[in-house]
């Protein structure tokens, strides 16, 4: 029997996540004890951690999109062969990226530190993905639900913003520091927005499918929120670089657009009680449980994000662990929760197995461990960032003295990281067992 290609995407995605978190833990301990496990030093651990976690986001999101399109969206994939080629390019490039990091061959920039030649197969794989996606969805005659728009937008903008993140290979960009840093963070900011489109689209799809109600995915409000998200993807990135001396209006535009997120925050708070009551009635469904958790994390991270976008606050928090709190809270609390929800829907669906009571219990314990400990992890990063930002502006201590002051909080981060990893293992062991049996 031919195996479903999506299961391979998801399998490699889960392995990438577990590997990425392990390297993150290693890096966190190296922060406190610089001589800890010198075989893989911090400058290799950090890119391994980041790239593997990004690989988890893409592999699990893309695996889901291929499967959901062909099984649930009343369309036939334009090509069944292209996803296999896509997967192979991704895996081979991934191996080369890991090899380049381990051997100390860098050359790229933050988040994409591998030699720039490896960007070529990544771009080709996204062109194939986009070609297959749009050829498939354009055969769908009925009105598209919002998640079809979101997935398409995510693919389109990822391709362009990833190309943009490689513009530094041209001397016009590379040799001008302010332009280089600005364009790098323009692309990085929009890249995150583009993969958020893939992930939030998946969340809406799952709610639609599990509840068997497509009214939300086709509602006017869903599209208004989608376009607001798209505006933020395009214009909101400069809050990362308020202190970079580019044109002043770049900062004002980013500040203004960032504040439109208050509308999203307001909507979440307005609907909070009603949505929570509805969600709690379906809390026993594992996928729904993870989406409910992501809703809580959206509220927390969006509040933090809006605060960090105010220049008067950003001037203290920029370049501190508060930025890391925002990144980690979003990646683990929002993105990973939604993608785990997708895995827990998709893997049983493909393998035709259902979690028994014991497995559900293990996943449930993992869920609570992950979420409760993530809160301590997140708060520890916020406190580390707050104290670092304050001490830097006070300008009385040296860098090393400041780092010593925040060391207790970073110790909490490292320890809670280990516990979060344990929670993840508990969540993933039962579905990994399904995959093993299916692939045998």
């Amino acid at each position: 029997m031919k195996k479903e290609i999506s299961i391979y995407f998801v399998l490699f995605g889960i392995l990438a996540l577990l590997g990425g978190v392990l390297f993150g833990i290693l890096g966190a301990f190296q922060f406190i004890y610089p001589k800890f496990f010198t075989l893989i030093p911090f400058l290799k651990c950090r890119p391994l951690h980041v790239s593997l976690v990004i690989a988890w986001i893409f592999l699990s999101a893309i695996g889901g999109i291929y499967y959901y399109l062909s099984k649930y969206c009343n369309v036939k994939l334009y090509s069944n062969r292209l996803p296999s080629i896509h997967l192979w390019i991704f895996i081979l490039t991934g191996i080369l990226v890991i090899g380049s990091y381990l051997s100390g061959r860098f050359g790229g920039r933050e988040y994409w530190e591998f030699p720039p030649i490896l960007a070529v197969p990544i771009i080709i794989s996204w062109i194939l993905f986009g070609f297959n996606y749009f050829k498939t969805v354009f055969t769908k005659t009925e009105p598209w639900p919002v998640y079809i728009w979101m997935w398409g937008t995510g693919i389109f903008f990822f391709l362009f913003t990833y190309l943009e993140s490689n513009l530094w290979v041209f001397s016009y960009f590379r040799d001008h520091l302010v332009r280089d840093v600005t364009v790098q963070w323009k692309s990085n900011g929009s890249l995150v927005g583009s993969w958020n489109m893939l992930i939030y689209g998946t969340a809406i799809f799952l709610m639609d499918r599990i509840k068997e109600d497509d009214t939300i995915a086709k509602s006017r409000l869903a599209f208004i929120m989608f376009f607001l998200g798209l505006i933020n993807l395009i214009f909101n990135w400069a809050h990362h670089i308020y202190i970079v001396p580019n044109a002043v209006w770049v900062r004002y535009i980013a500040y203004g657009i960032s504040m439109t997120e208050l509308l999203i925050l307001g909507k979440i708070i307005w609907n909070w009680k009603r949505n929570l009551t509805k969600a709690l009635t379906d809390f026993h469904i594992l996928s729904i449980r993870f989406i409910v958790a992501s809703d809580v994390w959206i509220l927390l991270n969006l509040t933090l994000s809006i605060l960090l976008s105010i220049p008067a606050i950003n001037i203290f928090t920029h370049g501190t662990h508060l930025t890391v709190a925002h990144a980690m809270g979003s990646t683990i609390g929002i993105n990973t929760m939604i993608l785990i929800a997708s895995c827990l829907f998709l893997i049983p669906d493909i393998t035709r197995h259902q979690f028994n009571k014991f497995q559900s219990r293990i996943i449930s314990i993992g869920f609570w461990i992950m979420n409760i400990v993530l809160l301590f992890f997140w708060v520890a990063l916020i406190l580390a960032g707050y104290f670092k930002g304050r001490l830097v502006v006070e300008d009385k201590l040296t860098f090393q003295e400041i780092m010593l002051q925040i060391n207790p909080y970073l110790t909490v981060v490292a320890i809670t990281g280990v516990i979060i990893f344990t929670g993840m293992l508990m969540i993933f062991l039962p579905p990994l067992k399904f995959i093993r049996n299916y692939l045998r």
Partner: protein
Amino acid sequence: MKLNTKRFISGILIASFFIYSIVIYTIGTSVDKGEDFVNAQAKNGKLLFQKKNCIACHQIYGLGGFMGPDLTNVISANGKGPVFVKTLLQYGSVRMPNYKLTETEINDLMAFLTYADKTGVSPVKKFEINYDGTVNWKSKDEKGN
């Protein structure tokens, strides 16, 4: 929402993305106070900075890793300066490995850091907060740091 409305808004936003990108690549980033310091050494130094993955631990304009300090103004910072930086590049420290850099590589990195220093200020320590939440700070040549 009607299909044509969705198409129209999408089209406007996609066009805005490309137009805004071009504006950023040109007039949005045309200011460069340190352009007199951009020479072959500084260009090589910038590439070496990437090849050694310095950004994993250090920051430029507060962007990068947090293991080591921000390097934007390390060349002119009180208590640091060129001799301090050169010594660290030659021998490393408890946290920073000794990369066994050649004299040329060290000079290239020094030239890049000298260029970076002239472009602006980071971290910003002296500033004024305005009523609308925006911030004013002095640039490097106005002794803002």
